[in-house]
C-alpha cells in the first residue's frame, strides 16, 4: 500500500516536472528559431530602408519609426489616464462605484484587442473616411488604460497606510499626500506596470489592421496611415515569397528583442522587492 502511494507520488512529481520543463522548452524553441532565422537577413540597411517590391530588398525602417510613434502617442494618453484611475481605485475606490470601475477595468483587460480596432474604426475611421495614425494610437491607448489601472492600483495599495496618516496629521491636503508621498513611494511599481503595458501594446497587430492600417513610406502625420512592425511582419508572413518570409523573421527578431528587453528590465528592477 505504502509502496503504491510512494510510486504515485514520484510519478506525479515527474509528470509535473515534465510539464514545466516542456513549457520552458517551447519558449526556448520559439525564441531560438526566431534568432536563427532572423539573424541571417538582419542588416543595417534592413533597419533603415522602407519596404520594396519583391527582389529589390527593402526593410522595416518606416515600420520601426511608425511603431514608436504609435506607441508614444498611445502612452501619452493611456499611461496618465491609467495611473489616475488606478489612484482613484486605491485611494477612494472602496465604495460601490469603485467596485464597478475595478470590475470593468479587470474585464476590459481580457477583451480581445481586435474589438478595440473595430470600435475605433466605427468611431473614427468611418467618420473621417480614412485610416490614420490617430486612430491607431487611440485603439492602443484604450488597450493600455485598464492594464496600467490595475498595476497602479496594486502598487499604490502596497504603500503603508501609516505614511498617508503621517502626512495627513501634519496638515497636508489629500492631493499633496497622493502626489508627494504615495505616488513617489510606489513609483517603481507604477513605472514597471506602465512599461509592461508598453511591451504588450508594442506587439499588438489586430487593432492596427484597420485603424493605422500600414504604409510603405516614412510618415509623421497624424491623419495618414502609419506603418508598424507587427502589421509589416503579418504582411510579409502571409505573402507567398520566400524573400519576404526571411524579412518577416528578421523583423520578428527586432520586435521580440525589444519586447523581451523591456520584460527583462522590469524583472530586474522589481527583483529585490517581490
Amino acid at each position: 500500500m505504502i509502496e503504491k502511494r510512494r510510486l504515485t507520488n514520484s510519478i506525479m512529481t515527474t509528470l509535473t516536472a515534465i510539464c514545466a520543463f516542456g513549457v520552458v522548452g517551447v519558449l526556448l524553441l520559439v525564441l531560438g528559431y526566431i534568432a536563427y532565422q532572423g539573424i541571417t537577413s538582419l542588416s543595417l540597411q534592413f533597419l533603415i530602408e522602407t519596404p520594396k517590391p519583391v527582389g529589390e530588398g527593402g526593410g522595416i525602417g518606416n515600420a520601426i519609426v511608425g511603431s514608436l510613434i504609435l506607441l508614444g502617442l498611445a502612452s501619452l494618453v493611456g499611461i496618465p489616464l491609467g495611473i489616475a484611475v488606478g489612484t482613484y481605485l486605491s485611494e477612494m475606490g472602496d465604495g460601490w462605484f469603485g467596485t464597478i470601475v475595478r470590475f470593468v477595468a479587470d474585464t476590459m483587460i481580457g477583451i480581445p484587442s481586435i474589438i478595440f480596432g473595430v470600435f475605433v474604426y466605427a468611431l473614427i475611421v468611418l467618420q473621417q473616411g480614412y485610416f490614420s495614425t490617430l486612430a491607431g494610437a487611440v485603439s492602443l491607448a484604450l488597450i493600455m488604460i485598464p492594464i496600467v489601472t490595475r498595476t497602479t492600483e496594486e502598487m499604490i495599495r502596497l504603500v503603508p497606510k501609516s505614511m498617508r496618516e503621517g502626512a495627513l496629521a501634519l496638515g497636508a491636503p489629500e492631493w499633496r499626500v497622493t502626489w508627494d508621498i504615495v505616488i513617489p513611494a510606489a513609483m517603481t511599481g507604477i513605472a514597471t506596470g506602465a512599461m509592461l503595458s508598453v511591451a504588450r501594446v508594442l506587439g499588438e497587430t489586430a487593432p492596427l489592421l484597420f485603424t493605422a492600417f500600414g504604409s510603405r513610406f516614412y510618415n509623421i502625420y497624424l491623419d495618414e496611415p502609419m506603418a508598424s512592425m507587427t502589421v509589416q511582419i503579418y504582411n510579409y508572413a502571409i505573402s507567398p515569397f520566400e524573400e519576404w518570409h526571411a524579412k518577416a523573421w528578421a523583423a520578428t527578431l527586432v520586435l521580440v528583442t525589444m519586447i523581451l528587453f523591456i520584460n527583462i528590465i522590469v524583472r530586474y528592477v522589481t527583483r529585490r522587492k517581490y
Partner: protein
Amino acid sequence: MSNEATRENLTDKNSKRSTVAADKFYRIGLTACATLILVILIAMVAVMTQNSWLSIREFGFGFLFGQTWDPVKNQFGALPFIYGTIVSSILAIIIATPISVGVAIFLVEQAPKWLARPMAFLVELLAAIPSVVYGLWAIFVLAPLLRVYVQPFFQETLGFLPFFKGTPTGIGMMTGGIILAIMITPIITAVVRDVLEAVPVTQREASLALGATNWETTKIVLVNASSGIAGAIVLGLGRAIGETMAVTMIIGNRSEISASLFDPAYTIASVIANEFTEATGDLYLSALIEMGLILFLVTFIVNGLAKLLILSVSRKTEQGH
C-alpha cells in the same frame, strides 16, 4: 500686534479654503477619470450596436444560426465562425489545462525556490511574445511538424474517428487549437499559481503531519483551490476565444463546418481581421461589426465569470486566516 494676528489668521483661513478647494478638485478629477472607463465601455457597446444595426435588423437572431457567408449575395450567417471559435478554444483548453496545472503545481509545491523563480519568469515570457509572432512560427515550424509527423500518426491510430479524417495539411483546426494552447498556457499557469499560493500553508502542514505523501497533500490543496482553478480555465477560455492573429494565420480561413480537425476552419476574430478592410457594401461591414459585438459580449461575460470564480478563492482563504 493684533493686526498681525488677524492677518495671520486670514492667510491661514485662505490657505485652508484653497486646500479644501484643491482637495475637491483632486477628488472630482480622479473620479472623472474613473468614470471615463465606464464611458468607454458604454460607448463601445453603443457604437458597435449602432454600426451593426443594419445587419441586426436584416437577419435578427437568425444571424447566429445562418450557415452561409456570401458577401456577393449579401447573405451573412455566423454559425461556421461561432463553431470554429468554440471548437478551437475547447481544443486549446483541453490541451492547456492539464499542462498549466502541472506547471503551476511544480512551481508552487515542488520546485526549490532557486529553480521556481527563474522558471516562473520564463513561463511568463511566453505570454509576452506577440500573437503575430506565434502565427509566423506556426506557419513555418508547427504546421510542417504536424503535417509530417503528428497528423499522420493520428490518422493511422485513430483514423476511424470523424475528427481525424481527410488530408493532413498542417493548416486547420488542429494547428489553431495547439497554437492557442501554447498562448493561453502562461495565462492559466499564472492564475493557478496565485490560487495555489493563496491556500494556507497550515493545510499542507496538517496533511503532511498525518503522513500523506507530497502528491496526496497537493491533491488536498487542489480541491481547496478548485474554484480558483476553474476561474483560471475560464480566463484562458476567454483569451482563446478572442485570439486573433496567430489563429488567422494558421486555421485556414474557410467558413465551412467540418468534424475533421485536419480541415480548415474560421473563427469570429479571424473573419474580422481578414475581411474588414475588404468589406464593400454597408451590409457586409455591418455584419462584420455585429461579429465584433458578439465577440465583445461573449468575452466580457466569460471574463467577468472568471473574475468572480477567482475572487471566491481569495475570499475563502482570507476567512480561513
